[in-house]
């Protein structure tokens, strides 16, 4: 509770600054596509009452949930494998880099040809968008695991599979969770992009519609709602992370504790 209270003033301060900067800029320079802060706020409220929005969110989130679940199920084990096996990593690395840098917008038509138009290709795109973050961070996490723990586990007869589940996975978890947060961000992006460029169901369709009609306030309201959802998901991931990796705080604490009695 005290932590929450300590953070609140800063959050309020920056939010006020942010809102003021937005509003002032929009008034000075805003045009058809840049609504003011308060306009957007009003439009957000109005949009939240629209059943159309909730339908769109429902449609979009199907792909998000499925795609991200697949990214986690594949990405975490793969990242750990790559962190553990040098030879494998050396061969796979270049493909990982390619996956990371390929502009997905360009491969969307390919994907459509391959998986058709529908949930499958939207899901696939969300996965492709987010999986790299999960893999790269899981791998970095494995690198941070103290090798003497692996030695210890081996001395107790742990096989490779058990080293994975009992040592590497928990040890890499803080970094993996960072990857999950990054991946979640990318997954939401993927969910929207695929709809903007390809299958404009769901919230991407709303964005296209409002943009096409030059309705800036609801356009930004949609974006605000998408971002709010993403922040919610990331907070949930944070919450899980805190529960799963409380141990890392016994070995890693923050600055500003030292000194005289409090």
């Amino acid at each position, binding site marked *: 509770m005290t932590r929450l209270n300590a953070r609140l003033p800063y959050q309020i301060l920056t939010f006020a600054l942010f809102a003021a900067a937005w509003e002032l800029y929009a008034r000075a320079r805003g045009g058809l596509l840049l609504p003011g802060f308060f306009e957007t706020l009003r439009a957000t409220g109005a949009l939240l009452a629209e059943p159309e929005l909730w339908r769109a969110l429902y449609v979009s989130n199907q792909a998000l949930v499925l795609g991200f679940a697949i990214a986690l199920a594949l990405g975490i084990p793969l990242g750990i494998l790559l962190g553990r096996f040098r030879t494998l990593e050396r061969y796979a690395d270049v493909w990982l880099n390619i996956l990371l840098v390929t502009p997905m917008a360009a491969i969307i038509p390919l994907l459509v040809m391959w998986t058709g138009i529908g949930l499958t290709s939207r899901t696939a795109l969300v996965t492709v968008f987010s999986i790299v973050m999960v893999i790269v961070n899981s791998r970095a996490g494995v690198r941070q695991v103290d090798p003497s723990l692996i030695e210890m586990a081996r*001395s107790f007869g742990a096989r490779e599979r058990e080293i994975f589940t009992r040592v590497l996975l928990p040890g890499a978890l803080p970094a993996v969770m960072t990857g999950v947060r990054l991946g979640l961000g990318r997954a939401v992006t993927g969910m929207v992009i695929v709809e903007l460029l390809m299958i404009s169901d769901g919230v991407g369709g709303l964005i296209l519609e409002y943009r096409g009609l030059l309705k800036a306030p609801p356009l930004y309201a949609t974006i605000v709602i998408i971002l709010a959802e993403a922040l919610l998901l990331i907070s949930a991931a944070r919450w899980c992370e805190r529960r799963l990796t409380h141990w890392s705080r016994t070995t890693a604490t923050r600055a500003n504790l030292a000194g005289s009695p409090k």
Partner: protein
Amino acid sequence: MIEIHGLSKTFTDRRGDTVTALDDARLDVAENEFLTLLGPSGCGKTTLLKCIAGLVPYDSGTIEIDGRPIQGPGPDRAMVFQNFALLPWASVVDNVAFGLRLRGVARAEREERARELVATMGLAGFEKKLPGELSGGMQQRVGIARALAVQPQVLLMDEPFGAVDEQTRRLLQEELLALWEEQRPTVVFVTHSMEEAVLLGDRVALMSARPGRVAELVPVDLPRPRARGGGPDRSGVYAELTAYLWDRLREMHEEHRTVRTGAPA
């Protein structure tokens, strides 16, 4: 039972320099023997133990247990690590039960055994703490309990009582001896305390540094149980043996100091 012949191990560091930790070392440990291992810091004791545990690939030589060359780590051996090597995310009980869990012991059973050992180590009440919440000596005891929990045939202990106070050390020594007499594992026990080496060992192996090998094996022909009840050596029974070890080690130490004035070989 453990037979080591011509064991050599050279480490190459990131700049390509080499350090020879073990050089043509040989050592035989009999079945059920309690062997203590003394030697200057950095002479290769930990390396030797890890080789026996099957954790460190060595360059040449053989290590056989019961006549079979070792193939990596095995369930017959367990090691207590000098740096404890506790899982920072697991509670005391879970750390102690780690080896049991790997061997597929059911949850209830392994928790019970772990709790017993935790109490034996004087850590009752700390079962749910994380390693980061324990003092150094407490952490070390968790590492010991973990190795004892799996009841190995060969117990490899790397300075297991280095971080605990003398009183606790005495208690733990007694517990260890009691366990050894009951289960009769073969023990290789690294220590820096000559008194401890004599108190516990059937034989004391003295290791020299560079070349890292076993220079001398000193039998300890004292009746067991020895000096039960603790207290410092007020009677002087072991003083002679301890003094001998001291002199031998000092000789080796001085040789080593003069040898070592260059870069490490």
